[in-house]
C-alpha cells in the first residue's frame, strides 16, 4: 500500500520544535529533519485520502522543508532582536558579569582555602621529616658507638685471655727455674761463699730474663686491660693513669723504632708552611708573671 507522510508547517509538533529552539536561545548543533518529519507526520493511504475527498495533494521535499524552517527561525530571531533594547541588553550583560564575578570569587576562595590546607599539611610533614632525620642520625650514631664498644670489649677480652695463658706459661717457667736453683743450691751444700755468689748471679740473670722484659710488661698490660674492660662495662668514660702509662711504654718504643727501620723521603722541609702574625701576649704574660709572684692580682 502506498502511503504519504503528511507534514504541515503550522502543525502542533512543528511549532513545539521551533519554540524549543527559541526558548533555549540557540539552534541545536544538528537538526535531524528526517527524524522531525518522521515524528511530526502520520501515514495516510491514498484510498483513505480519496475517501475523505482529497483528489490532489501538495508534495514537499525535504530540502524545501529545511529551507522553510531555517527561514522561519531567522525571521523569528530577527523580530525578537528588535524587541530587546540597548538598556535591556546592557542590563543583561551587567547581570551576567555580576553573576560571573560572584561565581569566580566563590571558586577563588575555595581554591585558596584548599591551598592553605595543603600548605599546612606540607609544613607538618616537613617538620616531621626533619625530626625523623634527626632521630635517625642520633640512632645511627648511638648504634655505631655501641658496636664499636662491643668490638673493642671483645678484642680486649681475647687479648686478656691470651695474656693470661702466656703469663701462666711464664709462671711455670719461673717456678721451674726456681726449683732448679734450689736443687743446685742443695747439691752445693749451701756453705761455700763462691758457690753462693755463683747462685746469686744465676738467680739475678734469671730474674732479668723473665721479670722485666716479659712478666712485668704482661702484668702491666693485664692491669691496663682489666681497667679498660671495667671502664667499658661500667661506661664510666674515663681511663686511669696507670693503664695509660703501661700502654705508653709499648707505643713510644714502636713509634721511634720506625726511625731506624724505614726510609722516609720527603719534601716537607722544602715547602713553605702557612705563617701568620697573631695578637701579642705581652699583657697576658705580664699579668700571669705578676700573679705567680703573688702580686696584687694574685692575692
Amino acid at each position: 500500500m502506498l502511503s504519504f507522510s503528511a507534514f504541515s508547517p503550522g502543525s502542533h509538533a512543528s511549532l513545539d520544535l521551533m519554540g524549543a529552539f527559541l526558548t533555549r536561545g540557540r539552534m541545536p548543533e544538528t537538526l535531524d529533519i528526517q527524524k522531525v518529519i518522521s515524528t511530526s507526520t502520520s501515514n495516510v493511504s491514498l484510498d483513505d485520502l480519496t475517501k475523505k475527498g482529497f483528489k490532489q495533494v501538495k508534495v514537499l521535499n525535504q530540502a524545501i522543508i529545511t529551507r522553510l524552517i531555517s527561514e522561519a527561525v531567522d525571521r523569528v530571531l530577527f523580530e525578537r532582536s528588535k524587541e530587546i533594547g540597548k538598556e535591556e541588553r546592557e542590563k543583561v550583560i551587567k547581570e551576567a558579569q555580576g553573576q560571573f564575578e560572584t561565581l569566580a570569587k566563590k571558586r577563588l576562595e575555595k581554591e585558596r582555602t584548599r591551598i592553605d590546607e595543603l600548605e599546612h599539611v606540607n609544613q607538618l610533614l616537613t617538620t616531621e621529616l626533619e625530626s625523623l632525620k634527626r632521630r635517625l642520625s642520633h640512632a645511627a650514631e648511638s648504634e655505631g658507638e655501641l658496636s664499636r664498644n662491643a668490638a673493642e670489649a671483645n678484642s680486649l677480652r681475647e687479648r686478656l685471655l691470651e695474656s693470661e695463658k702466656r703469663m701462666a706459661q711464664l709462671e711455670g717457667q719461673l717456678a721451674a727455674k726456681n726449683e732448679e736453683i734450689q736443687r743446685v743450691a742443695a747439691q752445693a751444700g749451701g756453705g761455700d761463699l763462691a758457690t753462693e755468689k755463683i747462685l746469686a748471679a744465676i738467680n739475678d740473670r734469671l730474674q732479668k730474663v723473665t721479670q722485666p722484659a716479659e712478666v712485668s710488661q704482661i702484668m702491666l698490660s693485664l692491669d691496663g686491660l682489666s681497667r679498660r674492660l671495667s671502664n667499658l662495662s661500667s661506661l664510666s668514660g674515663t681511663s686511669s693513669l696507670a693503664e695509660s702509662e703501661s700502654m705508653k711504654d709499648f707505643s713510644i718504643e714502636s713509634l721511634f723504632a720506625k726511625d731506624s727501620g724505614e726510609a722516609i723521603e720527603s719534601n716537607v722541609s722544602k715547602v713553605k708552611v702557612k705563617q701568620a702574625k697573631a695578637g701579642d701576649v705581652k699583657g697576658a704574660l705580664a699579668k700571669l708573671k705578676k700573679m705567680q709572684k703573688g702580686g696584687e692580682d694574685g692575692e
Partner: protein
Amino acid sequence: MGNSAEGSSTQAEKAPSTKAAPQGGSRFEAGRGLDVGTANLASAIQDKDGNVIIKIQRNAFIDIDADYYTRNMLTKLNVQYVSINGKMVVVGDPAFELANILNRETRRPMKGGVISPSEQEAMPIEKLLLENLLGAPNYPDERCYFSVPADPIDADFNVVYHKGIFGGMLKKLGFEPKPILEGHAVVFAELAEDDFTGIGISCGGGMFNVCVSYKSIPALAFSTARGGDWIDRNVATVLGIKASRATAIKEKGVNLLSPNNREEEAIEIYYRNLISYTLEAIKTRFEGSTGMPSFPEPIEIVCAGGTSMIGGFIEVFQDEFQSIKFPIQVKNIRRAEDPLFSVAKGCLVASLSDV
C-alpha cells in the same frame, strides 16, 4: 727548616735580616707553644720585640699513586709529600683539597682529639710535620708547652697515652715537653683582663675542651668527644656526601643565622645541637662536682678553635645559653681574639711564664 720563621739557631744566624740576639744567638724568646689539634697543628713563638709568630699546618694526609714526575711537580707546586715504605702521601691542606677533588676522605693522624688508633703508621709523618713547624730548639732543652685534651666525659680513650706520644716526639726533637690542658691554654690566651678567671672553651675538630678557671687555676676541666668532625660526619650522613665535602661547605663561609640551602640548614642543626650538648655538659659537671669555686663576680665565657669561627656561632651559643639554667653567673660570651691560634698562644704564655 729553610722557611721557618723561628728556625734553628743556625738558621737565625745565617739570615742577615734577622736581629741577632746576644743570648743564645737567637732573635726569639726561649719557649714555644704548640697546639696539637685534630684538625690543625699550630706553633707559636715570640720574638724579642714581642711579636707572636704562628705557623699552622692542617693535620691530614692522603695517599696517592705517584711517579718521579709527580714528585717533582708536587715540590714545584709547593705541595708537601712524604714517601714512606713505597707509599706516597700528600700532607696538609693540599691533602684536603685532593680529597675533595678525588671524592675521597682524608686520612687523619688524630681522631677525636687524640692519636687515632687506626692510623699508627701516620706517626712518622706527624713527627715530620712537628719538626717542620717547630724547627730545632733555639736554646738547649727549650721548653715547649703542648696542648692535651682533658679527660672526656662521653668517650673511652687514652689521654695519657696521647700525652706520652707527643711528649716523646718533642723530646726527640730536643725540646723539654710540658703538657697543658687545651681549655686552660684558652684561659691563658684570652682571660688576662679577668685575672684568668672564667670559662675557656676550645672548640676543636675532634672535641670541645672546657676549662673553668679561677685565678689561673683550673677548677674543672673536661672534654666532650664531639667537635667539628662530628658535625661534618653527621652532615655527610644525612646529605649522602663525603665528610671532606661537608668540611669544605662549612669552611666556605656559612652563617648559622641565615642558612641558604639544605646543606647549610643541616650544618646549622648540628652546630646548635653540639653547642647545646656542651652547655648541658658544663652545667651537669659543675653541679655534680665538689669543691667548685663560688665566683664573686659574673664571669666571661670565651670560645676559641676553628669550629667557633663559623658565622653566627656566638649568637647561637648565646641563644642556647638562654634556654638553660646555667649554674654560674655569666657577664659575657665572646669569641677569642685569634680563634684559630688561641690555644697555641695560651701554650706560649704558659711556656714564657714558666721560670
